[in-house]
């Protein structure tokens, strides 16, 4: 047996190799997008790019349809996240704190939308919205996104509440704090980082959602749908790559922060 494999600090070569291949497999496509956002070619890509330019950033910034889509996506994600924070926290509080018949079933049903394929959620929502004679609009997109955003917030908060336990809540009530005061001064400070983490994750999920949105949107396009529609138009192709970078930044940053927050509270 080789010395390096008994040392314990370094992974055996096949494992290390596997990890690197997996990492490359996951991230090379992203690097390609980054690269071709700056290519001088307009319609077709060749490797290596014949030249690099910042021109596409300016062109993207000048397109009103891009700005409209971005604004819509930010508003949808913002409102869906807010709704998820309120509903997710309430659901988590109910499940974590009380004992009632069918609690496990409720807990499972709350998690289901995350596991359910987006296409099923989309079709279901579209049928429900049509049946209710509700016009497809900004609000139907928000409702569609809220279905999975609630789950993300719920999951984060319920885990925190379970670890937090009930005794500090009882102590607070015992010392004269009513329900609202107990939430405000005892529960909230303890779940704040879980809420922030859950909220950011929900925001990121909503911001790049495509499948459910295609079923629940009316005439509007959110940013991911706008990108999708751009792919069939070969002109100004690097513009989509520039927008993709914008999407990466807007979703990546909250996820990194959310990850940090959950890590800190686990210590």
């Amino acid at each position, binding site marked *: 047996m080789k010395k390096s494999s008994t040392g314990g600090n370094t992974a055996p070569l096949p494992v290390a190799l596997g990890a690197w291949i997996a990492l490359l497999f996951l991230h090379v496509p992203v690097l390609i997008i980054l690269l071709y956002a700056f290519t001088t070619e307009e319609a077709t890509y060749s490797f290596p790019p014949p030249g690099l330019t910042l021109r596409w950033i300016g062109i993207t910034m000048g397109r009103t349809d891009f700005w409209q889509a971005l604004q819509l996506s930010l508003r949808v994600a913002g409102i869906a996240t807010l709704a998820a924070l309120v509903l997710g926290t309430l659901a988590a509080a109910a499940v974590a704190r009380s*004992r009632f018949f069918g609690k496990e079933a409720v807990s499972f049903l709350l998690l289901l939308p995350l596991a359910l394929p987006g296409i099923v959620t989309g079709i279901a929502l579209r049928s429900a919205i049509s049946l209710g004679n509700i016009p497809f609009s900004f609000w139907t997109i928000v409702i569609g996104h809220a279905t999975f955003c609630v789950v993300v917030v719920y999951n984060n908060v319920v885990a925190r509440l379970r670890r937090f336990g009930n*005794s*500090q809540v*009882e*102590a*607070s*009530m*015992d*010392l*004269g*704090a*009513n329900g609202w*005061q107990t939430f405000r*001064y*005892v529960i909230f*400070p*303890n779940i704040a980082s879980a809420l922030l983490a859950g909220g950011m994750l929900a925001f990121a999920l909503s911001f790049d959602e495509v499948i459910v949105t295609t079923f629940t949107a009316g005439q509007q396009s959110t940013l991911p749908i706008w990108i999708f529609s751009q792919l069939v138009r070969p002109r100004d192709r690097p513009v989509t790559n520039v927008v993709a970078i914008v999407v990466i930044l807007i979703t990546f940053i909250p996820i990194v922060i959310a990850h940090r927050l959950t890590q800190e509270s686990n210590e």
Partner: protein
Amino acid sequence: MSEFVIELVDVVKRFATPEGNEVTAVDHVSLQIRHGEFFSLLGPSGCGKTTSLRMIAGFEWPTSGEVLIDGKPMGRTPPFWRPVNTVFQSYALFQHMTVFQNVAFGLEMDKTPASEIKHRVGEALEMVKLSGMERRKPRQLSGGQQQRVALARALVKRPKVLLLDEPLGALDLKLRREMQIELKTLQEQVGITFIYVTHDQEEALTMSDRITVMNRGKALQTGSPVEIYERPNCRFVADFIGQANFFAGKMLAFDDQGARVAIPALQTELIGQPVGNLEPGQAVAVSIRPEKVRIAQEPAFGSNSVRGRVIHTTYIGSNTHVLLELAGGVRINAWEQNKISTLDPKAYFLPGQEIWANLFPENVLILPED
């Protein structure tokens, strides 16, 4: 002002288990607790003592019966409207707040003016000897210190009754002994009624004015530590508090020294003290505590002196524990105090030695069989 600060009137509490069954945690319990008393609820785990305490605090509501605080029926009054405060077993300190903020919390909820809060928190922390720790967070404190913060936080509100749920359970033995004395002193100093839940009989005997012994949801006996120890009213209480030797017996008759019981295993009759309502012919449990068994070379009281043999001795310093085998092969424990300082082995009992066990009538208790 009502005569009793806390009354439980025929309180029952049933819980539904997740399996769909029903458990009776508290089974028709009635208690009357006086102003300024140090009152303990004592029993093994699952006996309903904590549930009873939680019903006084308002965390649980009785299934039937009534909890009265200072004469007022509590019904479904939530905890934050009850004039009682709790010291939790886990302390339940607010981890995100400093010691000062923890103790001030209850006063802030009452909208007490800031200057008074500062004054009273200072006073409370001084009382529990934590002055100077105001700005620490709970996790920077030792277990004993956290315990004191929990105490100060509850006492600062000047409740009518302080409820303590096994507050010393997490501390080591030495600290626990210290805190027992400190708690008792504190209680006498502030004059607040303490209701103390514990499974530690020594703790209850040390601190309490009165004790209620509970088992399986029922309140078996209420009395002073002396009453509970010297006149337990049933076999469970005699067995749970301290140690006791038991014989199965049958009531024969009352006489001027108490009552006579037949003990088939010893093939003799004993005279003892009947406790509770007993009738001739009834099956009884006859008990005698190990320290009350007198070992001697000569019989000293008629049929209450039983022939026996020393099986085994254990020297434990202040006492020597002697295991005796009596007539009919019945084994009992006897504790002899080592009142003379000597190295002579003959001064102590030796295995194989033939002796008499004198079970004096005043030390023999006749209890109803559970």
